[in-house]
């Protein structure tokens, strides 16, 4: 149990996919201008990475190592297509807002990396928790970026006005440039946090 917890929890901060590993950056910038869109993207990626880790772990002994990468890609692409169709059917507005980035979940480095580094060498339950942890870390990072950009950049949270009506929102944060700069500082902040954690452990 404790072991599963440590597998799960390393994705949250110490190996956070966005802030520390710096993989899958495209969605972190492209679809975080509002909280609801970040939430959808985060949940989708969490679903895909967990499901894919499980599938890869189940088939890991059946696949010839030479063709493993194409097999992983087919598995990821199939799961993403499922997610695409579900979102298109039940949440058409969010599906439109995510646009091309939803299809691009297929080529997120983090998903392939977890399949290769972890799920291809570990059992089903461990791989499931690894995927869940990484997915949660991704979701948390997306929500932090989305919340900061929406609250400061347009003065709302989940579409509800939180800033006083006289608040003059700086458009900068909603624009691409603001996203880059904000993530730069968040990466630096996360680095300080990781160093702090490691120092207090030692």
């Amino acid at each position: 149990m404790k072991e599963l917890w440590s597998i799960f929890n390393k994705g949250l901060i110490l190996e956070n996919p966005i802030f520390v590993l710096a993989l899958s950056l495209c969605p972190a910038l492209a679809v975080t201008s509002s909280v609801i869109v970040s939430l959808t993207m985060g949940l989708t990626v969490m679903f895909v990475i967990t499901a894919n880790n499980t599938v890869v772990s189940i088939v890991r002994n059946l696949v010839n190592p030479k063709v493993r990468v194409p097999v992983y890609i087919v598995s990821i692409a199939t799961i993403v297509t499922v997610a695409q169709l579900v979102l298109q059917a039940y949440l058409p507005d969010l599906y439109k807002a995510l646009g091309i980035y939803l299809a691009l979940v297929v080529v997120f480095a983090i998903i392939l990396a977890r399949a290769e580094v972890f799920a291809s060498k570990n059992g089903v339950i461990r791989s499931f928790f690894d995927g869940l942890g990484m997915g949660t870390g991704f979701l948390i990072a997306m929500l932090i970026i989305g919340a900061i950009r929406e609250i400061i950049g347009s003065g709302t949270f989940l579409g509800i006005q939180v800033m006083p009506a006289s608040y003059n929102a700086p458009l900068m944060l909603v624009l691409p440039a603001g996203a880059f700069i904000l993530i730069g500082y968040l990466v630096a902040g996360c680095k300080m946090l990781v160093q702090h954690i490691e120092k207090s452990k030692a």
Partner: protein
Amino acid sequence: MEYLTLFISAVIVNNFVLTRFLGLCIFFGVSKNVNASVGMGMAVTAVMTLSSIMAWLVYTYVLVPFKLTFLTTVVFVLLIASFVQLLEMIIKKHAPALYNMWGVYLLLIATNCVVLSVPLLNVESSFSLAKSIVHAIGSGAGFGVALVLMASLREKLRLADVPKPLEGLGVAFILAGMLALSFLGFSGMISL
């Protein structure tokens, strides 16, 4: 004229990296020196153009007639990944010098969002074959431009005194933000 606007819009107004946030992994990974950036830009443009053509043909003549458009993502990913692998083998066999120069980049772009996104965008905006090609070349050129600009900035940065936590990725992001800000000046120049 239409093609020229499309090209310019793909290169600067809708720059892939700075306004659409695609290919960031490569962008931050390779932009450490200028030579590598030029090579990467060329390799991406070539792969992007060829895979756009193939994807367009497959989409128009296979997926649409057989009503299989829901498989677009799966088919495109496999098509591009296998094409890049094939290209790598061919280059390795017939042009070893070229392979030594650019071979590394080919592996990196086999499954990358920047290469996959161009065919997807072409399909989404229902471009003709000629337009798809122009769009692909323009997007590749735009990617290359951003990469070279970023690399030259980062080479300068090596001498700068950056606060410890910001070193590396942090400051690279902020730099990219500044670049994006200056590219914002082009927005509205061309409306498609």
